[in-house]
């Protein structure tokens, strides 16, 4: 062995030593990060394709807004009478209700015989005044008695539907349109009342559109030849719940 190669040997020993130290430092660091943010990092790594999944230091450049559809300031009642253009006349709620004694206990829409003939309430066991404001029919009311504009109706829904509201705020309920990347464009979101009528909130049934191609259907009558064990997670629970 000549001098030269001996030297390189030595330096490669050194390299190994550096590598060991480096690895130790790294793992200590990684461990402490894990302890701090542990569960989340771990969870994601289990679920996701591993490639390239590391937290970036996101400088979330948000150049555009998320806007939420808002209903009209306050609803009106469409009357049978028409104006001279033949358009139906409308009346604001206070037109009548500022002079009427409010009925604070009504919770059954079938008892409405004087007016609001078509209105159906089918929303838990709520009474009209769970949401409407006896002091001002052009406004809503929160559980704590606070007056609320119709435009902020989501606050009303949120107070009784916490989980859905949380999901909504995190984008997994209620849908959206526009840009996932707010540095490139804006996003529009639905209001709860775009999808749920406050009086009959159950989501409406749809007739399915766009029947699949018959050839396709026959080709794989369908399809996923999985055994039940291949599906992990909540389906199994759903099974038990049903």
């Amino acid at each position, binding site marked *: 062995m000549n001098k030269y190669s001996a030297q390189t040997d030595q330096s490669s020993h050194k390299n190994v030593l550096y590598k060991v130290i480096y690895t130790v430092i790294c793992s200590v660091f990684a461990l402490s990060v894990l302890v701090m943010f542990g569960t989340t990092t771990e969870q994601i790594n289990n679920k996701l394709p591993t*490639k390239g999944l590391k937290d970036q230091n996101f400088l*979330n450049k948000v150049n555009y807004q998320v806007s939420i559809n808002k209903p009209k300031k306050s609803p009106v009642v469409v009357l049978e009478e028409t104006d001279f253009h033949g358009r139906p006349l409308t009346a604001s709620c206070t037109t009548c209700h500022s002079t009427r004694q409010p009925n604070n206990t009504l919770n059954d829409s079938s008892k409405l015989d004087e007016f609001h003939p078509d209105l159906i309430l089918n929303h838990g066991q709520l009474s009209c005044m769970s949401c409407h404001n006896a002091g001002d029919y052009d406004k809503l009311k929160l559980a704590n008695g606070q007056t609320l504009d119709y435009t902020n109706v989501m606050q009303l829904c949120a107070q009784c539907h916490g989980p859905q509201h949380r999901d909504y705020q995190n984008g997994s309920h209620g849908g959206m*349109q526009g840009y996932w990347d707010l540095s490139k464009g804006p996003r529009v979101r639905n209001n709860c009342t775009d999808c749920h009528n406050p009086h009959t909130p159950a989501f409406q049934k749809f007739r399915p559109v766009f029947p699949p191609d018959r050839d396709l259907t026959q080709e794989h009558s369908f*399809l996923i030849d999985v055994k039940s064990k291949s599906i992990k997670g909540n389906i199994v629970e759903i099974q038990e719940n049903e």
Partner: protein
Amino acid sequence: MSEESKHSLPVINNGMSRRTLLKGVGATLGASSFAIAIAPIAQWAKDTSVDEFLQQHYKELSSSDLDQVITRLEQDAKDKYGADVTIRDHQPLPDVQFAYALNLSICIGCRRCAEACHQENNHDRATSNSYIRVLEMDKGSLNLEHGKVNYDHPVPADDKFYMPVQCQQCENAPCVNVCPVEATWQEEDGIVVVDYNWCIGCRYCEAACPYHARRFNWKKPEIPKQEINPKQGYLSNRIRPQGVVEKCHFCLHRTRQGQLPACLEACPTGARVFGNVLDPDSEIRWVLENKRVFVLKEELGTKPRFFYFFDE
């Protein structure tokens, strides 16, 4: 895994030309199955220009080559369909890894997503093709084999739930592994793409996909001029030639510009969540961290980027 074992066919080296390759495939398959596999090519080859046939693999095209190809394709759309289209070559965005999640407690099976895909991606009108299939399944049953696709009654039906299935953009994609010509691959942002001008239409990928997410163009897509979506991507929704395989590409011509996929925007129920998992504040990340998500056929080790979940 060695290169050899990854491919079910003898590995095709880059040096091999496309013509020798076709021969090679024939040799390993035996004459009759080769004839079947290759039939579509024989069919459309006569309508194919020499330029088209000799076009290089997308990944090897220089940017000026690609410009030429795109100009030619735009001109093609004008000649064959009478439509003015713009084809762009959308590149993956830096620091972006896409993922998709679908809330099965919310989906009602209305198939608006499949319809939106059909329109967005310039599918053949006559066959009502779409990259999305919606399965109607019995609640409390896991028998996906009996999932029904051609249901036609108001939805959601009691005792049913609905599961839209599209390309799962697997990290370990069987379709990519079996492609004998490397006409399909996974991009940096996780989207598995197809080079429609390189695909030889052998349909191995279609057979390999455990999710039945790939579609084969049996004929030249027919779309009325005014219905053609003119905003097109080279690797996504440009009108595909006959005889090639295609699949969902997460609407990369939209999503690589920051927009949401067409199927998500069309969903009237809000069941779909899409975004960049590397962004800790993203909606998709919230779902992955806070909902109990699962993937289809996990045991196959395909590592999908498409997740399903139920609200608890």
